[in-house]
C-alpha cells in the first residue's frame, strides 16, 4: 500500500471514530463545560493570581475523561473483528500494522481533541475573567500535553491489547474498563493523598504518594513548576524525580503493550 492508501486508511478510521463517538463526545464536552464553568468561577478564578497556579488542580480530571475515551475508541478493534470489518479491510492491500497504526492515530486524535477542548475552555475562562496566565502557563500546558499524550497512548495500548487477545467486544471492553478504573482510581489528589516519608539531609519529610495514577502524576508534574519557595525545594526535587520515573514507567508499559499487541495481531489468523 502506498502513502496515499495509508493516509486514506487513517482518515477513514478517524471518520469512523468521530462518527461513532461524535454525539457522545460532543454531549460530554457540552455537559462538562457547563459544569466546569461554575467550578472554574467559584473555586479557581476567584482565588488564583495566575491561571498557571491552579492549572494542576483543573487538568487531572479531564485527562482521566480523555483516557477513557481513548481506550473505548481503540477497543472498537474487537468490535470491528466481530463485524467482519477487519476481514473486509485485510482483503485489500492493507497491512496489519497500517490497520493498527490507523486505529492508534484515530483514537489518539479524537481523545486529544476532547482534552484540548477543556484546556482551551480553561484558558478562555481565565482570559475573560481578566486573570493573567502566568509565566509558567505555556510550560504547564506543554507538560500536561506531554503527560496526557503518554496516558492516551497507554490507554489505547490497553484497549488494543485486550481487543487482540480476546477478539470479543464485550470481554475486551469489560477488561479494559476494569484496568482503567483500577489505574485511575489509584490514590491521587482527587481520592485523597497518601503520605510516604523520606529522609533528606537527615530530616524526615512527609510527601504525597500519588504519582502512579494519571491525575496524581499530572498534579505532581505540573505542581512542580509552581513551587518557587526555596524551603519547599525538596518537594520540587521529589516531584521532578517522580515525574521522570512516571514518564519512564508509563512509556515503557505503553510501548511493551503496543509491541505485544502488534506482534499478536500480526500473527493472528482472520477466520
Amino acid at each position, binding site marked *: 500500500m502506498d502513502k496515499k492508501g495509508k493516509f*486514506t486508511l487513517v482518515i477513514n478510521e478517524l471518520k*469512523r471514530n468521530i462518527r461513532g463517538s461524535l454525539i457522545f463526545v460532543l454531549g460530554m464536552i457540552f455537559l462538562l463545560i457547563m459544569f466546569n464553568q461554575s467550578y472554574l468561577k467559584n473555586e479557581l478564578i476567584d482565588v488564583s493570581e495566575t491561571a498557571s497556579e491552579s492549572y494542576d488542580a483543573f487538568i487531572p480530571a479531564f485527562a482521566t475523561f480523555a483516557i477513557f475515551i481513548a481506550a473505548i475508541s481503540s477497543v472498537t478493534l474487537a468490535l470491528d473483528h466481530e463485524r467482519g470489518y477487519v476481514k473486509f479491510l485485510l482483503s485489500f492491500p492493507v497491512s496489519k500494522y497500517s490497520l493498527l497504526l490507523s486505529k492508534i492515530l484515530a483514537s489518539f486524535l479524537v481523545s486529544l481533541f476532547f482534552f484540548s477542548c477543556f484546556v482551551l475552555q480553561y484558558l478562555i475562562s481565565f482570559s475573560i475573567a481578566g486573570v493573567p496566565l502566568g509565566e509558567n502557563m505555556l510550560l504547564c500546558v506543554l507538560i500536561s500535553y506531554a503527560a496526557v499524550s503518554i496516558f492516551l497512548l497507554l490507554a489505547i495500548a490497553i484497549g488494543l491489547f485486550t481487543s487482540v487477545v480476546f477478539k470479543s467486544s464485550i470481554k475486551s471492553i469489560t477488561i479494559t474498563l476494569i484496568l482503567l478504573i483500577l489505574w485511575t482510581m489509584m490514590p491521587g489528589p482527587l481520592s485523597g493523598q497518601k503520605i510516604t516519608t523520606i529522609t533528606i539531609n537527615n530530616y524526615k519529610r512527609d510527601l504525597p504518594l500519588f504519582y502512579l495514577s494519571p491525575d496524581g502524576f499530572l498534579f505532581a508534574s505540573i505542581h512542580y513548576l509552581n513551587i518557587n519557595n526555596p524551603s519547599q525545594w525538596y518537594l520540587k526535587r521529589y516531584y521532578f524525580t517522580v515525574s521522570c520515573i512516571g514518564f519512564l514507567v508509563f512509556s515503557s508499559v505503553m510501548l511493551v503493550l503496543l509491541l505485544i499487541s502488534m506482534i499478536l495481531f500480526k500473527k493472528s489468523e482472520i*477466520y
Partner: protein
Amino acid sequence: MEIVVCQDLYKLYGKLVALENLNLTLHSGKKYGIIGPNGAGKTTFIKLICGLLKPTKGYMNVFSLDPWKDRVKVCERIGVLHEETLLPLTEKVFDIFVYVGKLKGLSTAELKKEAEGLLNIFGLRDKIHLRIGTLSAGQKRRLELALAFMGSPELIILDEPTANVDPSGRRDVMSIIERLSNEIDATFIISTHSLLYLEKICDEIVFLDRGKILVKGDVRDIIAKYSKPVVRIETSDNKRFAEEIKGLSSVDYVNIEGRSVIVTIKGEDFYKDVVKIADKLGLHLYRLEPLHETLESIYKIIIGRRENG
C-alpha cells in the same frame, strides 16, 4: 503460468482437519469452480489464498509469493468476495468505491471511471448516494462483487457469490459473473452451490470433500466420465410401464418424475426392450428422449459414491 500452487497442504483448526494433503495447481487465465458439501474446506482454501489463514503444514504460493507472509503483495493482485457480507453499513455506496479504490492504489480519475463502469454493470447506478445499510441483501452482494472487480485484479476469488440472494437475484448475479468472466482477462476461482451456472462459467472443477480433493479436471471431461445414459420416457400409463421395465437387465434405475419416467440405462438393448414392453402392454409411447447429465447430477453421483464407500 501457475497462479496458485499447493503441495501437501494441511490446515487444522485445533483437532479439526479442514484441509488434508492438498496438492493442486491453478493456472492463469482459467476459470475454476470449487465445489463440495458444506464443511468440505472450500472457504478455508480461499482464505489461505488471501493470506488470512496460515497453513498448518505444507506449502502454498500465490503468484510465487507466500500469501501468509506477503499478504499485501498478493492482495494487490487479487479481488475477493467473501462468503459473508462484510461491508461497513454506515458508509455510502460511492464512498466505499472511493475508499477501496484508494486502498488499491488507483488514482482519482481511474477509480471514478472504474466505479462508474462497475456501478452500471451491477445495477447500482441509482444507489450511489445511499448508505450501504439501506440496501437490500441482493444489492449489498452486488456491491461487494463490484468491489472485488475494482482495480483490474489478475485473480478474482468469489466465495458463494449468491449467498443471501433470492432466486431471481441469484440468476442476475451469476449472469453478470458469467458475462464478466468472458470479458475480463483474469483467473477466476468461484465457490458456489449454484452448479448450473458454474457449469456454464468454469473451465475446470475442483471437487472438495472433507478437506480432500475427490475429483479435479475439465468440467466437460468430468461430466463425460461420470455420466450414465439417462432417458426420459412418456407413455399412456407411466406407472405400469415403470413397474414393467424395472426388472429388465438393460435398466439400472427407474424413477417417475412428474409426467415422465426417468430411466438410467446400463445395456445396449434398452431401446428394443422399451418398444417390446410398450407393445406388450398396449401403451402409446409419446416421448423417448435421451437426457444430458449436468454438473448437478454428477455432483449427486459423486457424493452418492462417497457415501456408499
